[in-house]
């Protein structure tokens, strides 16, 4: 019971909330100002998604879903697809990663890369399907499989940077 209380205090620590908010701001800057110039075969990575996955992997599905939702909403401000669509896809994907992590017996150094790539595929599929349900049928007509596959690979490439950032943001306050 005492340990649960400590974890709750850590989760609600203002320093931690500030660092997570800072990560969202940095993501917006990176996604809108830097990565549009760093396209690989015309595709950009989902920085916000990879960070949400890293947060979920480190702190569980609840924090992951909340952070993914915030990241997605922030990114949705700067794209033309329906507002809330990235938030939906990121929140679900981060929740799934957090839930998956809870059931993991073994881990490896390659885990972040695999998770980021897998999350890229899942999130991309959710984005396309939910978007199409909400009237964006053109998402099915696009070269979506190619886009999602390249984005997922790119997500894996940036994972080694995103996972340490998430660990830093979620670190408990020093005694």
């Amino acid at each position, binding site marked *: 019971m005492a340990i649960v209380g400590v974890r709750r205090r850590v989760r609600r620590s203002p320093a931690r909330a500030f660092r997570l908010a800072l990560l969202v701001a940095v993501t917006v800057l990176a*996604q*809108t100002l830097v990565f*549009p110039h760093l396209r690989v075969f015309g595709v950009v990575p989902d920085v916000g998604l990879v960070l949400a996955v890293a947060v979920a992997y480190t702190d569980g599905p609840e924090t992951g879903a909340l952070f993914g*939702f915030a990241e997605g909403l922030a990114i949705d401000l700067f794209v033309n697809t329906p*507002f*809330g669509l990235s938030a939906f896809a990121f929140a679900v994907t981060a929740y799934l990663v957090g839930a998956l992590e809870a059931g993991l017996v073994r881990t490896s150094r390659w885990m972040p890369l695999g998770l980021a790539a897998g999350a890229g595929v899942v999130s991309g599929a959710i*984005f396309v399907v939910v978007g199409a349900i909400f009237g964006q049928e053109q998402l099915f007509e696009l070269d979506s499989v190619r886009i999602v596959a390249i984005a997922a690979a790119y997500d894996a490439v940036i994972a080694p940077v995103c996972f340490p950032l998430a660990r830093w943001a979620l670190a408990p306050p020093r005694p």
Partner: protein
Amino acid sequence: MASQRGKRRRTILILLLLTALTLITLDQRGDGEGVIGTVRGGARDLLAPVQDGLRGVTDPIGDWFDGVFDARALKQENEDLKRELAEARGEAVDGEADRLENEELRDILDLEFVGDIPTVTAEVVTASTGNFESTVQIDRGTDDGVTVDMPVVAGDGLVGRVSEASGRRATVMLISDANSGVGARLAESRIPGVLLGEGNPDELTLEFINPEVEIADGELVVTSGVQNSTFPADLPIGRVVDAERGRGDLQQEIVVQPLVDLRRLQFVKVLRWPTVGSA
């Protein structure tokens, strides 16, 4: 205890998803305007000074990166240019005829297409942030007289139309965007159709063309400019590169290559064209 935590987690997720679905619905109903449109515009304006400040750093890096990943495309382009040069040398004798033809085309199509329409010159500041849209952001907005639905052109022809505008920034939906549809016609035969984007900057699809119509490769496609159109008439868009018709088809499959290189836009002109209705 564990089941309580699991229940709480699921409740949070469901609340988040319901919120997201509500926002998506509101955005769809507001058609990009309303509260969500205002918030989006404010966010873009807020970021504009940072964007301007960082362009000196990000643009050269982007150019280098493009060079690395587009090496194959550049090689192909180089080969195409060499071939074109060889063909041009071989056809030098016909140059005079071509020049006259070009002049004639210019007269017919008014390639000085801007004409009397007032324009706003803008610089492209960034390409689209997401993977599922073909847009660019320009450094002019409503403060400069740019509003939603205004046509946007570059040196060779049509680029797209303004899809969102805030005080200092505007988003241009390129003609290659999967949501883009332009009322167009074949310049020679004057047959109208609708030119649709499919997310590919090199290919557009011209639809609703009768399968009986003969279409030559290389035929110019221009805006039709029908009444209440978003686009004025006769803006050059692209050239036919392929036209196929299967037996029993009700329309032809016509592939059009844009005249403007949509991957490498730098300066564009926004036409302050009356924006009544849509194309």
